[in-house]
């Protein structure tokens, strides 16, 4: 099976976010980027499938930032056969434009399966995986928690809610939005990543800058209210435990 995995760098969720001076985007000067967590699961499911069926796996990502290069080297170290880094100037673009860039890169490559994370934290104007499926006219399933080989296609488990799941059979080629891989994403030693850097398996592809086609305009951005209406407990852990004990007592549970 020939598999493509679409990966994206997103602002590190544990970092402190600040709004830029323009008031409509993050202040990106000191922002750290990490691999979108669901894309990590997409890569893992792709690697498992490639191990089961043979073929090849290529990882794609957009952007020239060091974090993007590092992400792709890590994918190679984990077992991707090759990786493509898209773009001269494709950072900070909307989901529609990201999808267009991925579609440009994979359209004529004859993939059987395109995997991406089910969503990313910055997809204001749609999920990239589904936008890619629409552009390529391929069947798609999102919120996938398992994809295994079945006859000429795949057996796919999709999660609904309240722990309910549904099983589907899907023909190939297809696009899946992966929520969770069958196994927790594998770890890889730093030494292997260094090897990957030397391997030459990462290639840069220049693409035309796609139009930001989402057609929605951010008019204001702000940090969400935290602790609005909440009582924030001051002091050290001892004071916190004491106050929480009081709260539990007044809620009648201790």
């Amino acid at each position, binding site marked *: 099976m020939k598999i493509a995995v679409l990966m994206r760098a997103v602002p590190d969720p544990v970092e*402190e976010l600040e709004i830029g001076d323009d008031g409509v985007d993050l202040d990106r000067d000191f922002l750290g980027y990490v691999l979108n967590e669901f894309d990590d699961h997409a890569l893992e499911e792709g690697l498992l499938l490639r191990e089961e069926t043979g073929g090849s796996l290529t990882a794609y990502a957009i952007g020239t930032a060091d974090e993007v290069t590092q992400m792709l080297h890590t994918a190679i170290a984990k077992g991707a056969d090759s990786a493509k880094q898209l773009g001269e100037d494709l950072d900070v673009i909307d989901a529609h434009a990201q999808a267009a860039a991925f579609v440009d890169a994979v359209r004529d490559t004859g993939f059987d399966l395109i995997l991406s994370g089910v969503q990313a934290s910055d997809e204001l104007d749609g999920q990239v995986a*589904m936008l890619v499926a629409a552009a390529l006219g391929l069947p798609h399933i999102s919120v996938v928690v398992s994809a295994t080989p079945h006859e000429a296609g795949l057996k796919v488990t999709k999660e609904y809610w309240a*722990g309910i799941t549904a099983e*589907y059979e899907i023909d190939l080629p297809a696009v899946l939005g992966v929520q969770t891989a069958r196994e927790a994403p594998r770890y890889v030693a730093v030494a292997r990543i260094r090897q990957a850097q030397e391997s030459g398996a990462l290639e840069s592809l220049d693409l035309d800058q796609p139009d930001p086609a989402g057609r929605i305009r951010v008019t204001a951005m702000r*940090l969400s209210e935290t602790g609005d209406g909440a009582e924030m407990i001051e002091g050290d852990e001892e004071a916190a435990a004491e106050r*929480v004990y009081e*709260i539990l007592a007044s809620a009648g549970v*201790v």
Partner: protein
Amino acid sequence: MAENILVYVEHLNGEVTDASFGLIALARQLASVNGASVEAAIIGGGAHGLAAKLAGADTILVGDTDTFGDFNPQGHSEVFAALVTSREPAITLVPYTSVGMDIASLTAATCNLPLVSYCLSVDAQDTLSATCQLYGGKVEVDVEVEGDRAIFAMLAGCASPDEGRSGGAGVVESIDVAVPDLGITFVSLTEPESGDVDITTEDILVAIGRGIESEDNIEEAQELADALGAALAASRPIIDQGWLPKSRQVGKSGLSVKPKVYLALGISGAPEHLEGMRDSSTIIAVNSDPQAPIFGVAHYGWVGDIFDFMPELTARLEG
């Protein structure tokens, strides 16, 4: 300008979901401002039988079919996209759920309409605009849509489901559901296995998130839960790692809980988590990140390290 508002109605096991009723209520609110009519589309097996429940809509568009009776990401998306093309709604509302996630982006792409995701609210007075959450709920944005038509994928809790359940009887219309060559076949539905503990009936939940760092540290949270007579619950990453069974997961794809006390330890408060616990009577959150969105729904919060906090509270409870 097209004046109607179209709602995608999801249903499972013969029930229309709360998220869909919520969207009908939201559509009604929007319609009352500018006199639009509310249309609800319900697609799949048994759709006819459920049409009567959608009384909050003026028109109920029913695509009853045996060909893809159960939810089929491709079949349902294509039928819905065709409907958006033919009915030309100004506003299309899709729930941002597991089902809606298959529908929203595909419909937007097929119909060449703007899509706004993670929406908390929509406004249609002058221009189409919305308020949305980004970056796991840490950031809120106001957006304006180009043009006079758009699709909005709404987060859970944007309107009250109960308000969407009532209303006069709408007009029922059948729609075409022919989809050539489906590449996807529905096989079966699996209900969750019940766990050793039913977290939906517990009075007190100690809920742990990725801040717990490793499986070995769960014992420390369990000791606190024991001292409190509470059950242990968790956010999704803890379940995905296999550290706790699925029956302990709170949130969008897990369970919704409403305990007397929800103690969230090392949980950031992503929208998918919040939708499962925000109605708890008392929410207490401990997180080292003062920007963590969990503090936005908590009644009490402490910014600090859970490994300092847990033993301290356990000792206080035992002492």
